[in-house]
């Protein structure tokens, strides 16, 4: 019995009006243990030629990435290489400058009309976002709500689930992340690791097809990292597509199907962990992995942007 399927989303079948690229998701389904082929819940994410600029600063310079349903993708790369920005374009928190992103064939944030992409109205974007969960580095739990209310809020407001139903489901999710007894506690009364677990439960409450993690453990004390990673591990084989920006190389090796290494707004290399992490082909990947191992690239809270990407604004942590 999978807890994640308890909450049905009524409008899921209604999202097929706007497909791109046509009919890819079915045959691209990977042959994976633990993925139930009868109910493929993970989303297929297609990222095509994505560019993103902030003013003159080009942060993403042509990203192509195909993420298959139910897979786990780890994105690594130096601070300032555009990992967060890429993640945020997937749920349209950042609009694109050029290119296209689709989940299960549905273009995110835009309506395609021939060669034109018309930006969608907020209401439609919000509906799309409900299928794409996001976990932030700084948790961003609603500070004035209990853990339970945090988890129940989105189903109530975004999907109109009645309160009692949403709270019952929220309790199950808190139980899933091992925090059943903290339901009535406010975020500031929780440890960092506990807060991040609540945030994961909150993202799960909408039963997303895709879950995005932006350095979920970077703001945590070392001894709290593992409890969060354990929760993410438990999600890895549950069917949801996971995209995780992380600096935890052993974790990435352990959990990821695909490791993507980014630098300067481009994907330098991608492949199975055994290739990218153990036999990297590019010098930049090797240098980065070396820096991470020696602890120089552990915490991105001190951003060291590459010299050709000037910092116009502080990072959006």
């Amino acid at each position, binding site marked *: 019995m999978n807890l994640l399927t308890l909450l049905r989303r009524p409008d899921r079948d209604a999202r097929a009006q706007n497909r791109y690229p046509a009919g890819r998701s079915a045959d691209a389904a990977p042959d994976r243990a633990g993925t139930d082929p009868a109910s493929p819940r993970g989303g297929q994410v297609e990222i095509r030629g994505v560019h993103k600029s902030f003013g003159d600063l080009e942060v993403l310079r042509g990203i192509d990435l195909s993420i298959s349903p139910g897979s786990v993708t780890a994105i690594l790369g130096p601070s300032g290489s555009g990992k967060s920005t890429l993640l945020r374009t997937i749920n349209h928190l950042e609009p694109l400058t050029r290119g296209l992103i689709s989940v299960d064939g549905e273009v995110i944030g835009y309506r395609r009309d021939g060669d034109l992409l018309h930006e969608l109205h907020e209401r439609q974007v*919000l509906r799309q976002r*409900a299928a794409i969960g996001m976990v932030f580095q700084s948790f961003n739990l*609603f500070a004035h709500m209990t853990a339970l209310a945090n988890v129940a809020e989105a189903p109530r407001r975004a999907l109109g689930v009645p309160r009692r139903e949403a709270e019952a489901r929220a309790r199950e999710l808190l139980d899933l992340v091992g925090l059943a007894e903290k339901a009535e506690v406010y975020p500031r009364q929780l440890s960092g690791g506990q807060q991040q677990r609540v945030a994961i439960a*909150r993202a799960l409450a909408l039963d997303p097809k895709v879950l995005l993690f932006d350095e979920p453990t970077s703001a945590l004390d070392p001894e709290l990292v593992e409890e969060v990673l354990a929760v993410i591990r438990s999600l890895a084989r549950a069917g949801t597509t996971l995209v995780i920006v992380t600096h935890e190389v052993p974790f990435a090796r352990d959990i990821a199907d695909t490791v993507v290494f980014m630098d300067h707004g481009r994907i330098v290399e991608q492949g199975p962990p055994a290739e990218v992490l153990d036999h990297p082909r590019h010098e930049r990947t090797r240098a980065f992995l070396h820096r991470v191992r020696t602890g120089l690239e552990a915490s991105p809270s001190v951003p060291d942007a590459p010299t050709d990407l000037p910092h116009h604004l502080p990072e959006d942590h």
Partner: protein
Amino acid sequence: MTSSVVSAETTRRTPGAIAPAGHAPATGAQEMSCRPEQAPPEDLSHLRVVPARHPGRAVLAVVVGLVVAAVLYSFVTNPRWEWGVVAEWFFAESIIRGLLETLKLTLLAGAVGFGLGLLLALMRLSPSTLISGVSWTFSWIFRSTPLLVQLLLWYNLGYLYEQVRLGNPFTGQAVFEARTSDLMTPLLAAVLGLGLHQAAYAAEMIRGGILSVDQGQLEAASALGIPARDRSLRIVMPQAMRAILPPAFNEIIGLVKGTSIVYVLAHAELFFTIQLIYGRTQEVLPMLLVATLWYVVITSALSVAQYYIERHYSKGAVRTLPPTPLQSLRARLARLRPAPTGAAA
């Protein structure tokens, strides 16, 4: 030469002097670990915690108490305050009527002020330059004009525009028509003047509160697909309230007393009533005291309300809420009582 020798000696000596002290805890620990063989560990469960004493606070309390007593004494004993007159008028019917009028004005102007202020604050934060520009202009105009001028302008609107006429644009037929001076009662002029003026200030206050909420909260809410209305009303506003409430109560209390300016419109609120009375009886000081005492009563009630409302909105913002005055009083009383009285009570 000599001095350098001395300093070399001191530096040599200093680490030596520190070293034994640094080792001391270690030796202590060793002793501790030896002790169990000689004697059983001391039972510490009977130890009692004594809260720290603050003699300075006690001294301060006495000083403050003396000053307050002196001031009160002069208030009570100085015959020029004419407490008899104060007591005679305090609950007089005309005063109470004026008081109710003041409360009504405060309520109406406050509702207009804060309702419109919220709208203006949200407009000001709109990405549309037109909308935020309209809000900015409103605040600019209503903050730059003296309140007294605004009140008089509203009241004399009939002089500027004699008629108010709402017509059907196609037939030209009047749906509604009235003389402005008939519509513009002192009450309406007062509510408009005070309310719009208040709105300009409230807007900035509310905007400040909204800006104080971490951007990540909005971002998380958007990422969760929560609609804009709920993001504002359920996520941002409740957290902004913490920053909005203290200045908001400042403004409300200011408004209570500020209503007294409406006497220029000859609207019979508390202050106008007071003036009427002392104009007749010449008992100026005691009548002013009556008004002041009533303003103190209202302000006190508002301050208590502020305390509890602020407490409500600080849920989650502080790790543990401090006890209310009532709760700490009860705790104090419980501490004074001898411990095992559970059955006796």
